[in-house]
């Protein structure tokens, strides 16, 4: 049986009066590369910080690698974290960062760290402040990987990188994950960053989880239906409309269902991951707004 790397139950975090995350119930299985996608401000960083124990929940529970997120050295050693904007000490040299990693992590894999640094072409003597954004991100990733965590969490690691550096970063990440079987959770506001690398996706919108599951299962359960104009309220039970658009004669729906679509009136097309995520992220498709509006359409 697969165990969960992150398991939350009605998890919530409130800052002053606003909820950054609420009612989040998730089970993220082990050994996956999980994409956490959602617009800026959706609560991605909050969820990841709760998972690393940097924040304590306001409500609900979270356990990581089977343990509550207590901040103990043992638990810290099991979870690697690359923060947003991949911070490094600007005045410290590359070699200094590796020493920092070696000093602070009992499980430090120096061979891995040195190998990655030389593969990346980083000069050990170079100060981290003079690295390019892509190199800095790679250095931060190296620190997190050489710690040899069971779970690696990355918060928007590629957001500030150019396309080439993004590609390089994600390739490096995938190589390391393949080598060590590390579970990974990484967030992005762009699904295009994630679709090449993730096999599990969580869509977080406006502090709530809107969809979560295996990428293949998500793709298999979402369909683009087009056919004669029709009120979505008349769909069979079990078909949930995520997005709808209508012309005078035609309706196009994005539907989630675990059952096959049997109605011959519909032309059924598969959806891409990007379409699916954008449908969930579009505020026009928010739950309260998604009421039958067909009746008033002209």
């Amino acid at each position: 049986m697969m165990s969960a790397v992150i398991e939350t139950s009605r998890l919530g975090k409130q800052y002053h009066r606003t909820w950054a995350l609420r009612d989040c119930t998730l089970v993220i299985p082990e050994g996956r590369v999980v994409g956490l996608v959602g617009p800026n401000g959706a609560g991605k960083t909050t969820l990841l910080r709760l998972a690393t124990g940097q924040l304590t929940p306001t409500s609900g529970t979270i356990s990581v690698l089977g343990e509550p997120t207590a901040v103990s050295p043992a638990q810290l050693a099991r979870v690697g974290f690359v923060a947003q904007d991949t911070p490094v000490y600007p005045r410290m040299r590359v070699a200094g960062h590796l020493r920092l990693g070696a000093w602070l992590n009992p499980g430090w894999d120096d061979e891995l760290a040195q190998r990655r640094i030389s593969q990346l072409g980083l000069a050990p003597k170079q100060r981290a402040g003079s690295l390019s954004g892509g190199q800095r991100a790679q250095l931060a990733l190296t620190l997190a990987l050489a710690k040899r965590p069971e779970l690696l969490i990355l918060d928007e690691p590629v957001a500030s990188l150019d396309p080439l550096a993004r590609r390089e970063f994600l390739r490096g990440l995938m190589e390391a994950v393949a080598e060590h079987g590390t579970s990974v959770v990484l967030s992005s506001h762009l699904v295009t960053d994630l679709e090449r690398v993730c096999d599990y996706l969580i869509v977080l919108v406006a502090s709530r989880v809107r969809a979560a599951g295996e990428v293949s299962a998500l793709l298999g359960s979402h369909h683009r239906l087009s056919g004669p104009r029709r009120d979505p309220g008349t769909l069979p039970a079990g078909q949930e409309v995520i997005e709808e658009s209508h012309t005078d004669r035609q309706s196009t729906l994005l539907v989630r269902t675990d059952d096959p679509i049997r109605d011959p009136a519909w032309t059924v097309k598969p959806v891409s991951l990007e379409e699916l995520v954008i449908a969930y992220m579009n505020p026009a498709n928010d739950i309260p707004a998604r009421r039958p509006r067909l009746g008033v359409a002209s």
Partner: protein
Amino acid sequence: MIRLTWFQFRAQAVTAAVALAAFAVLLAATGPHLASLYGASGITGCPAASCEHLASNFLQQLYAGGTYWVLYLLGVVVILLTPAIIGLFWGAPLIARELETGTSALVWNQSITRTRWLAVKLTLTGMAAMAVTEGLSLMQAWWAAPIGRAVGHGGGGTNLAMGRFSSLVFATHGITPLGYAAFAFTLGVTAGAVIRRTVPAMAITLAIFAVVQIAMPLWIRPHLFPARHTVISVMSLDNVSLHQGGVDGRSFTLGALNIPGQPGAWLLSSGAINAAGQATGITPAACTKPSVLGGPSLFPCLARNGIREAITYQPASRYWPFQWTETGIYLVLALALAGYCFRRLNRRLS
């Protein structure tokens, strides 16, 4: 973590070492000559009657010469400012810089708790802060020892003749610099943790530290131990400040500048009282003749008419109790601030 702390602290440590060395060189270059001046002054082994005079002459000579007075002041200023500088440049950035640059997210996600990170940083940097400040103080104490001895022999008459209880001397000698350094450092760390930005934290640190360092000698230190009161005859006063005013010198204020029989005591306040024991500033009518007012018969006249001097003071024997108490207060404040930082680091900051 100890290695990392040292690794990140190297640059500051080198700066501090250079500053200490420069101070040491300056004092070592001038100290022996100062000691030889003292040796030549004849204070050592002086006959009791002339000690005070010789000591005053020695201090006068140093003060008039200028160099040693300037060096003395320079040393005092350096020792007074060092805790503030440490609070600003070592304390304030300790947490604030990590938060500002986001490196807190890097270092606090290694296999080490924030508590341990802070404990090691605070201990090592705090120890260095205390060592540097106390080191400066001890060097200055060695250098200024002849001046202190001359003052102890009753030498006076110049700005250089500051007793051990005077604000500048008390705050730069003994063990108080340890307390100031620990307090200023943790104050900086706390300001950084609360404000989360280095430069504003530095400004706040400086402001609070300055207020505390002014409030302590003015309003707190004199009351750490209950003061003693004494009433003495105006005839026994040997060093006074006398101001006469009003019509024909009918009002006066009479302040004692030292306490007869109490060398090295800390004089808190003094003033004339009348026969009824009330503070007074009215010259008794019998003493208002012009010949008396400006002449040597004034004090005998005042004494005959019941005027005495009331003095509030702390005896010299309380010097070390004052030193320990004040240092203790600062160390407790430093510990309280450190404790707050631990709480805040684990609960609020991320």
